[in-house]
């Protein structure tokens, strides 16, 4: 029996509506350039949000991802500048920088995960703490200013954001791969099922011989790695990191996950929904910039209304469906 209720199509319908609205308001909306811009912009939050989907599905939360991205970007830039004299400009330098980003991401995620699972502290508190720590650290290492990648090194690294194959930019390709891998992991692997089981009822999961702590730890480690991956693609864009890098990314990522239909209290996750959620968020920004619909002072209000509407739409349907 094909199940096509509005609860699943809700976010998709909102996305289609936004695309139609955008195309109606501005001729350039559907141009290849604009579509590339929007998708490439979405990639950072998108990859993070895919990781966040697993964390939230298993009943956790991570508020530190935005600050973590800034911190990783800072460490990556410092490491690359430091290695420049020995490695010279070339692929080894870029690969070394990427390795640093992934390593720092892994350690940051591991730190969050261990504090939550081993020390048994609420995820909200742990990641609120690390959010402040990462943000302060990046401000401190940047001396309150901006850390910039060496000019020549950046010119070499730049194509990682702006280049691509077959006209598709690298961030979009990587985002697509991450999204597909995430969807498979959630739907077709033991890891995904365990995440949902833990999120619905961690006691029952434990009695069913699921290693609850270890699974939760993995979700934070995976998220840390994805933040590292997002940073790898973010750094070549502007070649700099400062205290304002990645500001509020955590909230955007969480909002995208919830818009996509994942339950904030855990137990049910939908990776493709998250991708739709991310696209909805960046499209709203894009459309508001392309069309002079309202005073720019009201941009935040429009975003708020659409986010709430997108969720109301599907919640209304799913509760009706449940009766």
């Amino acid at each position, binding site marked *: 029996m094909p199940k096509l209720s509005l609860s699943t199509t809700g976010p998709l319908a909102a996305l289609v509506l936004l695309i139609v609205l955008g195309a109606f308001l501005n001729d*350039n909306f559907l141009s290849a350039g604009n579509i590339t*811009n929007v998708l490439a912009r979405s990639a950072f939050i998108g990859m993070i949000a895919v990781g966040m989907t697993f964390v939230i599905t298993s009943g956790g939360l991570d508020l530190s991802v935005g600050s973590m991205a800034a911190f990783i970007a800072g460490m990556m830039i410092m490491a690359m500048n430091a290695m420049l004299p020995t490695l010279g400009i070339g692929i080894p330098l870029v690969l070394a920088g990427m390795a640093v980003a992934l390593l720092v991401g892994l350690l940051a995620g591991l730190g969050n995960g261990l504090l939550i699972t081993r020390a048994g502290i609420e995820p909200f508190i742990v990641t609120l703490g690390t959010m402040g720590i990462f943000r302060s650290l990046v401000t401190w290492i940047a001396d*309150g*200013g901006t850390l910039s990648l060496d000019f020549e090194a950046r010119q070499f690294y730049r194509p990682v954001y702006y280049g691509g194959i077959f006209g598709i930019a690298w961030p979009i390709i990587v985002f697509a791969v991450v999204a597909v891998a995430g969807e498979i992991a959630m739907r077709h692997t033991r890891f995904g099922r365990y995440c949902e089981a833990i999120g619905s009822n961690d006691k029952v999961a434990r009695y069913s011989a699921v290693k609850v702590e270890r699974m939760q730890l993995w979700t934070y480690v995976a998220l840390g790695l994805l933040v590292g991956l997002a940073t790898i693609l973010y750094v070549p864009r*502007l070649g700099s990191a400062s*205290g*304002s890098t990645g500001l509020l990314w955590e909230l955007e990522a969480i909002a995208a996950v919830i818009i996509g239909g994942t339950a904030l209290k855990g137990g049910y996750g939908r990776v493709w929904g998250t991708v739709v959620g991310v696209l909805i968020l960046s499209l709203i920004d894009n459309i508001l910039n392309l069309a002079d619909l309202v005073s*720019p002072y009201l941009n935040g209000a429009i975003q708020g209304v659409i986010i709430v509407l997108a969720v109301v739409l599907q919640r209304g349907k799913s509760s009706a469906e449940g009766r």
Partner: protein
Amino acid sequence: MKRRDFFGATAALALGVSLATGAMAQDKTFVIGVSIPSATHGFMGGLNWHAQQTIERLEATYPQLDFVLATVGEPGKQVDDLEDMLATRNIDGLVVLPFESEPLTGPVKAVKDAGKWVTVVDRGLSQPGIEDLYVAGDNTAFGQVAGEYFKANLQSGAKIVVLRGIPTTLDNERVDAFQKAIDGSGIEIVDMQHGNWNRDDAFTVMQDFLSKHPKIDAVWAADDDMALGVMEAIAQAGREDEMWIVGGAGMKEIIKRIMDGDKQIPVNVTYPPAQISAAIEMTALRFVSDTPVYGRFIIGSTLVTQENAERFYFPDSPF
């Protein structure tokens, strides 16, 4: 001040009571509180750096001065800081850059009412007459100087886009002055959006401006962080030769480019983060000398061109 040395240590004890109000003694230490927003973006980073440098230098020069530096991320916390300074650090003077004018007016007035010296920097309080000294950059001139450059260097009918900062009165003053300056020149502002003085935000806003408008002759980015984001978006679209950009505030990377004669970013308008140094120095003078420093001290916004750029280049500052 040499005269004071004749009194010596014992005499100072006897004088203690009368000097408590006199406030010019070598032997008495004065505590000056400095409360500024934390280094959340380039300009504030520079301001924090200059504040620290100045305090270090003044503490070395004047052993009788003590400084308490507090940086905050939001207006509410700044109120707490001011209360703490008054209650526990026993400050004699305060140098404050109010996070926001309205919420900080009351608390700063309380410091003044307690009989302390108050220096307000950059953002004025919403009630006049509270501060002893007001030190600020000139926001109206900031917009006006930029506007005049646009007027002088663009033909009638030219199309420009404007990136605004975080919605504040300060931003309004700048944009109003800019619009007034180009008034009657036939230059058309085809789009205006908030880039929030943020490099990433400016990048995305400019990307969208570039998709939307086939012809743009110039960009007023109004801030050097935003100018860098704008340049990156223009480079991506391959439209570097079509338009030039004017930022603002004098970031060292931008000043360097102007020194090197970069066509894409021909000039800059100053709004020096080192204004905090002026405020702290003048407040210190109040306690160590008889120099009159009360009143208003407005630091002009000047046009930085290739000829004079060297004067505004501070390679050691983080901004």
